[in-house]
């Protein structure tokens, strides 16, 4: 975990030290006024941008070890503080989206797999593939038009008072891709397990379908499903960037996009690190879950 984080921080440091444009140039990007060279110089000095790259990386790593992600250029607040403000909305969004995806996707894939080749199976899978084939911002926009504007059921944007009403549209939009993927994975996993020898054994024991599914099929299929959930949880953070921007959702993703366009590099680095950390934690949790489910792993 620690080497990964170090590698990631080096990578993003390198990337964002060669990126064109700077925080000072972004200040006049709206065409308003002009930069006073003296102020620009002073700013570069204040933010340490006048130092060579390796020195900046050195002090970055030293600070990182002390869990200090530095200070935002824009707000002059500690990056950690800003990230923590934004982390909860994103987590809420990701968890909600994943919950929707699991609650709908897994049973859907399950039902499809129980009757492979049936009309239901075909319909489910075509729907799932369709869900994977839509540009997300486009889907979100359509959802906004339909559910907020035409039907007037839900607020179209924003965080509101942090309640569930504002969460629904972005979470549903974000959940479509993992839902589709989960439905497919579940179907494949269940089919895979169903063709396994031990299922034949179980049937030869005289087991009925219900017990077969609950005693033998579910747990084995779960191993495969959990992998997908773990990986999706991580990549959800990337997809959240688009959704958050569209729905004015105050999460890490929109902070990241903003900070990239403003070249607020400490925040960009911090946000990416946070996303990476989130991914690693989720996958550690998945590994633990594996061990709980699968004795072959826990017993080495």
């Amino acid at each position, binding site marked *: 975990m620690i080497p990964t984080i170090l590698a990631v921080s080096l990578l993003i440091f390198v990337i964002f030290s060669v990126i064109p444009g700077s925080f000072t140039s972004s200040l006049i990007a709206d065409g308003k006024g002009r930069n006073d060279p003296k102020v620009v110089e002073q700013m570069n000095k204040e933010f340490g941008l006048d130092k060579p790259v390796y020195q900046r990386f050195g002090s970055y790593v030293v600070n990182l070890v002390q869990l200090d992600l530095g200070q935002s250029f824009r707000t002059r607040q500690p990056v950690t503080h800003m990230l923590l403000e934004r982390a909860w909305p994103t987590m809420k969004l990701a968890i909600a989206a994943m919950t929707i995806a699991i609650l709908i996707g897994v049973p859907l894939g399950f039902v499809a797999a129980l009757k492979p080749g049936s009309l239901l199976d075909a319909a489910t899978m075509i729907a799932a593939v369709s869900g994977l084939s839509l540009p997300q911002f486009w889907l979100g926009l359509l959802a906004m038009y339909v559910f907020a504007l035409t039907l007037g059921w839900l607020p179209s944007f924003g965080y509101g008072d942090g309640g569930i009403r504002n969460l629904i549209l972005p979470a549903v939009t974000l959940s479509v891709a993992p839902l589709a993927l989960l439905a497919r994975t579940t179907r494949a996993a269940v089919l895979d397990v169903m063709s396994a*020898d*031990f299922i034949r*054994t179980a049937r030869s024991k*005289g087991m009925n379908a219900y017990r077969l599914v609950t005693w033998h099929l579910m747990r084995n299929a779960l191993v495969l499903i959990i992998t997908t959930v773990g990986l999706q949880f991580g990549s959800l953070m990337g997809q959240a960037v688009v959704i958050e921007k569209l729905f004015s959702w105050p999460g890490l993703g929109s902070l990241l996009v903003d900070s990239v366009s403003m070249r607020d590099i400490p925040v960009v680095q911090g946000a990416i690190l946070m996303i990476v950390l989130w991914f690693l934690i989720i996958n550690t949790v998945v590994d633990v879950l594996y061990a709980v489910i699968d004795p*072959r792993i826990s*017993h080495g």
Partner: protein
Amino acid sequence: MSAPPLLEVRNLHIDMRSGQERLNVVENVSFSIGAGETFGLVGESGCGKSITALSLIGLLNRPLAVGQGEILFKGQNLLKMNGSELRRLRGNRISMIFQEPMTALNPLATVGRQIAEMFVLHQGSTWHEAERKAIAALAQVQVPAPDKRIKNYPHQMSGGMRQRVMIAIALACHPDLLIADEPTTALDVTVQAEILKLMQELCDQRGTSVLMISHDLGVIAKMCQRVGIMYAGHLVEERAVADLFRRPAHPYTHGLLASLPVLGQRKLNERKPLQEIEGIVPSIAAFPTGCRFEPRCTRASPICRDAVPGPSVLGDYSFVRCYHHG
């Protein structure tokens, strides 16, 4: 055998259906197993012996399906039974052991639970009771420290141990018929000997009939009273074991026995080549129309190509399907 047989298979046909196509994987197979008897089914891979076994307890998967025929178990036609009737029979009266002890057990459940399941399913035991019975069952298959072993997962056991667990599961409810599909093929020879001995002892004790499926004539000879030889979906010969090895009737059986290197047969300073069966086993899609062994047969004549030979009765429950047997 005077009493009515425990299991009687009559004119069993198994088809493989894909789209419009229908391939006869198993054709017109008939045999019977008496109570307490061990019947062997011998053949090479793809000859249909495992499929036949699976069809007996209704475990064929698409695209395979029984085309016609009757499977009478204690006089009842299994093919006419509905799902729940069949399920009550499965595992309880007829049980099965599979070839791969690695994959035939659920990797995520303890072996104890997988044995105990049988008692819960068929004897209405509580899990607690069932667990106690599972320990006893494990002890019967000579697994040391069964009370500890039931907490093990399959991956923690050796292949031989796993196969013992399979036997414990299969014999848990004292079935009338045990179907053993290549039970020892994946095992080392010394372990194979132990497992075969165990099976023989337990089945003898309980009077369980066994359908033994194997490609290994040695295993068949050791375990069975009577044997059926399958070749490319046909049951070509059915004999008592001793008769078969002494006087094989079908040219295929004959060739098979002649081609085996036999321990103790090699003479010093002289090496005879083994007798070969020329040619290759036909694939399912390309079965010959008449006798399916005809292309490889040394005795073949034009008549063999035209029609499948009917059974020539050689005695009680003994026949051969060959125009030129003897």
